[in-house]
């Protein structure tokens, strides 16, 4: 991408965030972005718009009531759709389950406990410090730390490009032969 195209892209992104684009401009932006989407200008402009914003003016009560009613309709509809796998066509009869289908589910159900126990055994005995509880615990990071993580991606990716091959590490360049693990020969921890 040339510098000039970059300038046009930035101008279009700024215009999109501040005053909106015409159809022609939107098509040009789509072409320049090539499927990628940059909403950093939207976020920036929204942040600036919030500088002096406190939402001090209360929403009129009739509007609040209208939105509450719209919310009930929206979430009822969504709940109906999530409970019904057929979506709106709820009266369509479900296909009858055949014996092979039933057998497949039964085999899967029988295998589930053993798969779970095997997973737990491996994770706890491998000594990697990996615990199921840790896996399931939701991890929330602050906005700032997530941003700094995001910024460090390219550096981490660059580091991971270092490939260890025979002769590529000076410390082990003179080591020859195969590596064989032996419990009897192991020393120390």
């Amino acid at each position, binding site marked *: 991408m040339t510098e000039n195209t970059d300038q046009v892209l930035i101008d279009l992104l700024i215009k999109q965030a501040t005053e909106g684009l015409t159809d022609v401009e939107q098509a040009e932006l789509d072409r320049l972005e090539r499927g990628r989407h940059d909403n950093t200008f939207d976020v920036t402009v929204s*942040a*600036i718009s919030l500088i002096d914003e406190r939402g001090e003016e209360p929403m009129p009560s009739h509007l609040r009531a209208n939105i509450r009613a719209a919310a009930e309709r929206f979430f009822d509809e969504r709940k109906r759709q999530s409970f019904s796998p057929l979506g709106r066509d709820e009266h369509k009869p479900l296909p009858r389950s055949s014996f092979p289908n039933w057998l497949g589910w039964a085999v899967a159900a029988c295998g589930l406990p053993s798969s779970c126990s095997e997973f737990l055994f491996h994770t706890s005995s491998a000594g990697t410090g990996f615990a199921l509880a840790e896996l399931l615990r939701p991890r929330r990071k602050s906005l700032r730390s997530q941003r700094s993580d995001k910024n460090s991606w390219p550096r981490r990716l660059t580091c991971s490009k270092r490939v260890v091959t025979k002769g590529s590490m000076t410390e082990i360049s003179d080591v020859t032969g195969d590596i064989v693990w032996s419990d009897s020969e192991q020393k120390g921890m």
Partner: protein
Amino acid sequence: MKAYGGLVWSIARKMLRNNDDAEDVVQEVFIDIWKNAERFDEAQSSETTFVAMIARRRIIDRIRYTSRRISADSLEDVTAEPWTRADESMQISVEAKEAAAAMKDLRPEQRQVLHLSIVQGLSHQEIADATGMPLGTVKTHARRGILQAREFLGLGKNLDEKEATA
């Protein structure tokens, strides 16, 4: 709605001024928020900014659709007191605080252009007409101000990363 009702209503009133338009658009904004809730990315923005972003997009669509724009209240007020309350105990959004800090480094004309453009909802051409600045100057002020705030928010690297991968 309890948390962001006042915010969305306030943004709509400020940008549209017409109560009927604002009421219509606020309902649409909330439906958009419910539909797009899954897209919220905590790493990119706070909840408040996300809600404000959806509200602004919808309102801009409405403005474009109706081809109506509000007029600036008083250009002198804008120039004299741009976002003074942000220096107080503004708790509305972490990005807004960062943006306010970035604004301090801008030149008064840049702050004025950003206020008229982002808060008052004027187009660049309307700002040029209202302030007497050439259109190119208005665009330059807007571009520099937004780029600087974007850098300050830590969002500025995205485009550069994309450039590198393109």
